[in-house]
């Protein structure tokens, strides 16, 4: 028999209520950690964007194409060393329910603009030599269990029909947070296959490598001015801004996610506080007995706070454990341009802090009540 025995025995007193409280806390902490992780991932999306790469898309929106004819003029600009382009393909695989990013690229220029895409030279050469070849991110390979040289068929959602590709290369990320879940193939293939669907002579967006990031805003303004009154006006911005704008498609998502996270935490704090208060109130006579035996006010308060701490700790272990299982072990990701989600040590620490806050906030009132409880009054209640 120790003080721990007493705390655990009290937690077992109403086991169902304790389990439900722990589960409630676990779900709340799971949601909180997941939202923070998602938010953090979206923020890193901006961070992986380079300031020395400009993205030129249609001013009307990323889903509207730009003429390939813009390329030559843009390539001739002072301060631009490379121009590449890509088009969103929107292919699906298998039952079509799993989303991933698939797009056609101008490979030579694209790979030279993106040193983050790490591809073995022989695989790059094999890809360049095969017009129906594809380069696939290592995470997407793992997700579908694909093998190098395997032929996979994607179903087009923007360009209807089945498209067979042979995987010629598997890329990894040369920079932390860079997407490893995309499917890339030759733009020429897309043009050929979609000629009769109006895809010829068009591309989704341009990517420009600029020699000096400080000149990027001026270059962007010049390009946008050139095509302002054309049938395909442009919006040019740094890749970082482009990525953040992509995140911005979801609206003020940071505020929204934070608000939900805080609401969840606050709601569970109320539930936990109520549970602890109920639990302590039910035991006022027992607390009076402990005091009669010689337990001091402080000792009794400590026992109540420790109970709240144990409940919060269990909730934290379950909630954080589930989040780490989902994001860090199973490596669930959202696909598309959003890099894989991962619970960082900082987010785990914030989760632990929230759990501690819940424990203290929910335990402090019943502990204070227990501490100031007058034995004579409490015993008179039960007599």
């Amino acid at each position, binding site marked *: *028999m120790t003080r721990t025995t*007493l705390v655990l*025995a*009290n937690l077992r007193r109403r086991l169902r209520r304790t389990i439900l409280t722990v589960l409630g806390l676990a779900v709340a902490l799971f949601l909180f950690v997941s939202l923070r992780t998602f938010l953090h991932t979206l923020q890193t999306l901006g961070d992986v964007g380079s300031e020395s790469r400009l993205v030129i898309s249609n001013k009307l929106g990323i889903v509207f194409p730009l003429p390939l004819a813009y390329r030559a003029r843009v390539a001739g600009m002072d301060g631009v060393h490379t121009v590449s382009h890509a088009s969103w393909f929107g292919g699906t695989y298998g039952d079509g329910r799993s989303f991933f990013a698939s797009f056609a690229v101008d490979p030579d220029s694209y790979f030279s603009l993106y040193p983050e895409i790490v591809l073995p030279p022989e695989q790059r050469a094999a890809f360049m030599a095969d017009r129906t070849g594809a380069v696939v991110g290592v995470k997407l390979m793992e997700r579908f269990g694909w093998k190098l040289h395997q032929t996979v068929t994607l179903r087009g959602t923007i360009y209807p029909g089945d498209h067979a590709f042979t995987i010629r290369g598997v890329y990894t990320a040369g920079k932390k947070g860079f997407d490893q879940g995309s499917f890339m193939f030759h733009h020429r293939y897309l043009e050929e296959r979609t000629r009769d669907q109006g895809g010829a002579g068009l591309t989704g967006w341009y990517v420009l490598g600029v020699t000096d990031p400080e000149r990027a805003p001026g270059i962007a303004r010049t390009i946008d001015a050139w095509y302002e009154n054309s049938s395909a006006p442009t919006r040019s911005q740094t890749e970082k801004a482009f990525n953040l704008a992509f995140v911005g498609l979801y609206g003020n998502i940071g505020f929204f996610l934070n608000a939900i996270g805080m609401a969840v935490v606050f709601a569970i704090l109320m539930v936990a506080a109520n549970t602890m208060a109920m639990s302590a109130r039910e035991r006022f006579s027992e607390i009076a*007995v402990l005091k*009669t035996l010689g337990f*001091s*006010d402080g000792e009794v308060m400590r026992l109540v706070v420790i109970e709240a701490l144990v409940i919060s700790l269990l909730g934290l272990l379950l909630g954080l454990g589930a989040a780490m299982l989902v994001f860090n072990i199973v490596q669930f990701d959202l696909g598309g341009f959003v890099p894989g989600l991962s619970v960082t040590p900082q987010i785990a620490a914030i989760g632990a802090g929230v759990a501690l806050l819940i424990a203290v906030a929910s335990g402090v009132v019943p502990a204070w009540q227990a501490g100031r409880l007058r034995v004579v009054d409490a015993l008179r209640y039960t007599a």
Partner: protein
Amino acid sequence: MPLVDVQGVSKVYQRDSLSIPVLDAVSFAIETGEFLALMGPSGSGKTTLLNLLAGLDRPSAGRIQISGEDITQLKSKRLAAWRSRHVGFIFQLYNLIPVLTALQNVELPLLLTPLKRAERRAHAETALRVVGLEDRMHHFPRQLSGGQEQRVGIARAIVTDPTLILADEPTGDLDARAAQEILELLVRLNREYHKTIVLVTHDPHAAERASRSLHLEKGALLEQTRAGMPAGGAS
């Protein structure tokens, strides 16, 4: 010097603007090894006096010295520590912790002592043997009869070997047979183990088992009776 020396103790409860006097300048002494019964009708102040002796409440006036220490002057924390060493309390409704076994309930006061885990357990087992419950150590209170629960309560009261055992109507919730057994146990603790016991009771038969009785009425001490003597000797 008496073990317990109560001098001019009064207690007045304040309920809103009302002052309710419960004890009025009570004085008496208890010698070591005495078995004292506190008698009186409901509302006479017996339980209040017992609570004051246990340091669970403070008198409005007067002084209570136990083993030479004036407990009315002790601060709350020191009073709690003093209680853990010097007082064993037996409740009318047993007040065992329902989620702990008999053994764990008896071990509870020992958590406040420097004893090691194994020593605590050994002490608790001994106390349960003294009250005749060695075969019920691992039963929870709900698995025990009222008489057995009260025996556990008594074991819990004696396990720290306190200076004073205070029993608040310990037979009040028991049938006649169980009540008799509990009284016999208290007598045995007094005679064999020389425990000083203060017993609050309504029951004259229970009071007869004590070596001395004090009668309270409306907060005042009326008379005292020694075992084998008729009532009437004033304090």
